[in-house]
């Protein structure tokens, strides 16, 4: 894909998002176009957004992770157990954050080691982790919803800085960091290489296994961050958090233009993908659509959006037959 086609692809996403906003404004007027609503959409997008940015790396590196939702659940539960919370009480709520990040990264490490050194297909490893982590979360929480008691924690993450909610800021930071990491560092270049042609990467002397492991750890960490955000947002930790995140995140990444087979990834596309999905739900709700109709509309819109976007990208790479 030429640079032109690539930027056209992003353009396609921007146009899709723009159209969606036009529809939103036309059908829901003020209620859609208000700052409040914008912030609501962004807040909703931020949790799954963080996971999706992490997922962009794993997929670009040629992997896949079905366990993200489960990892989010386990992290949120572990960080809100009575033990953790009383430690946080004695010390500072940062303990809870640390706990969530550690658990997330730990799960990611297990995934990564099994994929990279155990040489098991990522689909299977993370499917197993999906079952395992959710089960463990249920056992730890005893299937109860654990309430976050630390008000400092809730106020910090629930608050705003200069009118921008902290959650949205976290998302923005993760996205910006992800963009730099993927596009401006050797780590990012190597991720693309390993996803695009692992054998070539190996011959170029890259430590493919170690790098792959790191990618999963990174995603696990993103899941930990998402768990913290979710804990602040819902003031709870439960084993039901992160339900179907795997599908949502992968969908956002793929719609964004990252190749599912690896070797080509875009953080900007992922962010746009997340925003499109979140805005879609928002517009639907503002218009009081029932869930079934929403589902059908969503299916149709996804297909149309991608078709449009492809036509745009193709026009750029025209003579590039096949």
């Amino acid at each position: 894909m030429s640079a032109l086609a690539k930027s056209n692809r992003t353009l396609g996403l921007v146009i899709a998002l723009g159209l969606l906003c036009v529809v939103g404004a036309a059908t829901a007027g003020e209620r859609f176009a208000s700052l409040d609503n914008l912030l609501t959409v962004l807040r909703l997008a931020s949790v799954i957004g963080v996971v999706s940015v992490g997922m962009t790396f794993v997929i670009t590196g040629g992997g896949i992770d079905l366990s993200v939702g489960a990892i989010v659940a386990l992290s949120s539960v572990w960080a809100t157990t009575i033990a953790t919370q009383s430690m946080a009480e004695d010390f500072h709520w940062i303990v809870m954050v640390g706990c969530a990040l550690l658990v997330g990264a730990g799960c990611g490490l297990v995934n990564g080691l099994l994929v990279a050194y155990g040489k098991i297909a990522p689909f299977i490893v993370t499917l197993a982790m999906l079952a395992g982590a959710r089960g463990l979360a249920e056992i730890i929480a005893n299937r109860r919803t654990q309430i976050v008691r630390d008000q400092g924690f809730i106020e910090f993450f629930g608050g705003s800085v200069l009118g921008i909610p902290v959650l949205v800021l976290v998302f923005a930071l993760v996205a910006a960091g992800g963009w730099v990491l993927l596009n401006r560092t050797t780590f990012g270049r190597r991720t693309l290489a390993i996803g695009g042609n692992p054998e070539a990467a190996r011959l170029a002397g890259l430590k493919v296994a170690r790098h792959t492991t790191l990618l999963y750890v990174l995603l696990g960490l993103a899941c930990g961050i998402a768990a913290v955000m979710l804990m602040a947002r819902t003031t709870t930790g439960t084993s039901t958090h992160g339900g179907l995140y795997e599908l949502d995140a992968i969908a956002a990444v793929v719609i964004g233009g990252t190749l599912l087979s690896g070797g080509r990834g875009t953080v900007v596309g992922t962010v746009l993908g997340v925003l499109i999905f979140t805005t879609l739900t928002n517009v639907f709700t503002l218009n009081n659509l029932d869930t079934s109709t929403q589902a059908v509309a969503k299916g149709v819109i996804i297909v149309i959006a991608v078709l449009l976007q492809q036509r745009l990208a193709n026009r750029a790479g025209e003579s590039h037959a096949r």
Partner: protein
Amino acid sequence: MTQDTAALGGELLEMRGIVKLFPGVRALDGVDLGVRPGEVHCLLGQNGAGKSTLIKVIAGAHRPDAGEIRWRGEAVALADPQAATELGVATLPQELDLVDGLSVADNIHLGHEHARFGFTRRGRTARATTELLERLGHAEISPSAEVGALSAAQRQIVSMARALSHDASLLVLDEPSAVLDQREVERLFTVIRELTAQGVAIVYISHRLEEIREIGDRVTVLKDGRTVAGGLDVESTPTPEIIRMMTGRAIEYVFPPRSNKIDDAEPMLEVRELALRGAFNGVSFDVKPGEIVGLAGLVGSGRSEIVETVYGARKATGGTVSVDGEPLRPGSVPAAVAAGIGLCPEERKSQALVLGDPVSHNITMAMLDRGGFLDFAAERAAAEELVGALDVRPSDVDREVRTLSGGNQQKVVLARWLLRECRVLLLDEPTRGVDVGARSEIYALVRDLARRGVAVVVVSSEIEEVLGLADRVLVVAEGRVLHAAPAAELTEHDVLDIVLRGIVLRGDAA
């Protein structure tokens, strides 16, 4: 660069008794090789002799099962590619290992990026890239272009630049000239001479013996995974002797005689004003049954695109293709195949073979458009017959194509269309990577097909091959057919003149 060992006349790299086993094959069965600094050491051998495997051992990509490796006199274990790189070995592998999604600059510097604190220094990288590409005479390749969008030859250049980027003291080139035309090969040789003058040692593999004569200092000949002759002086060893060592027999490197009974037949393949936007325009030619038409030209002149468009793999933006008077639906490969056309594409690995499948499946692939049950016995019989006829080694048809040497893979692709019994055969670089012995066999085979009434189109970057094999030659440059003439009336020199200067010096259009 330290030249102590060179001054002592010692060997830079010394390999002794290298053994490499693959399931069911002793790919290397006791190979010895000694490379001195500043020399061009040519590695010769038939397809499957073990050259690439040996190279991979040097590059640290394969670990040998036995044997000793010494570097500047010290025993070393080349445990992984990194170890080899650190010693100062750079490799240009036979199967280009580039990452399609990365830019030219990123590909060249993959693994040894210009970076500070992990951040890539893009300006520096781009400058270094431009420098390398200029050195190879290809300043037109943009450092920021995605490698996936480059032509085969350009990719070869990038791969070459990648090997050069290492500042190595040993540069290993596995068939670097296979996709290059004469002009490119000359440029490559200039670079090689520069390097050897600086004391860099080169291991050079090629099936084009005249290249060995021109650039090589010494040769080592491999046969069936063993060194049959090590470190012979090129000057003093005659070509037939080398061929005899490689093949165990004396082969005349000759083209089969042309037949002359074709002129009165109706054309089998008619191409009229064929055009593909952005690639070529107004291409017209006929091929009669029994005739071989060659397309000569420089790399990137659009020959591959012409044959791919004739075949329907690319959708023509103008013009027609007819077989036996029947016009073909444009842009449809199945229609072309149904009409009796077959194509051996340029890049066997990505365009022709299912690497993980057995040889037999790959050979019968073009027969699958017919529905119904498979006849395993017939499939095996057909595959075995063709493997025998083309002398594919090893001759086991159940072996995954991936594990065959490059030249043998090429034969598998040819076998596919032989089985299909085409009326029109389009061959794009049919002898790329094929050894001397097999080359003669392929030539004979193609001629034999023609004799049986097949219309053949051959694209090759070796002008000698086009002139020797074809009855009639079309000279292509920048997407236009500049000249068409009977092969017998052209010389290599004429063709080069036409493509380089764009003018016809003598002869008239057919």
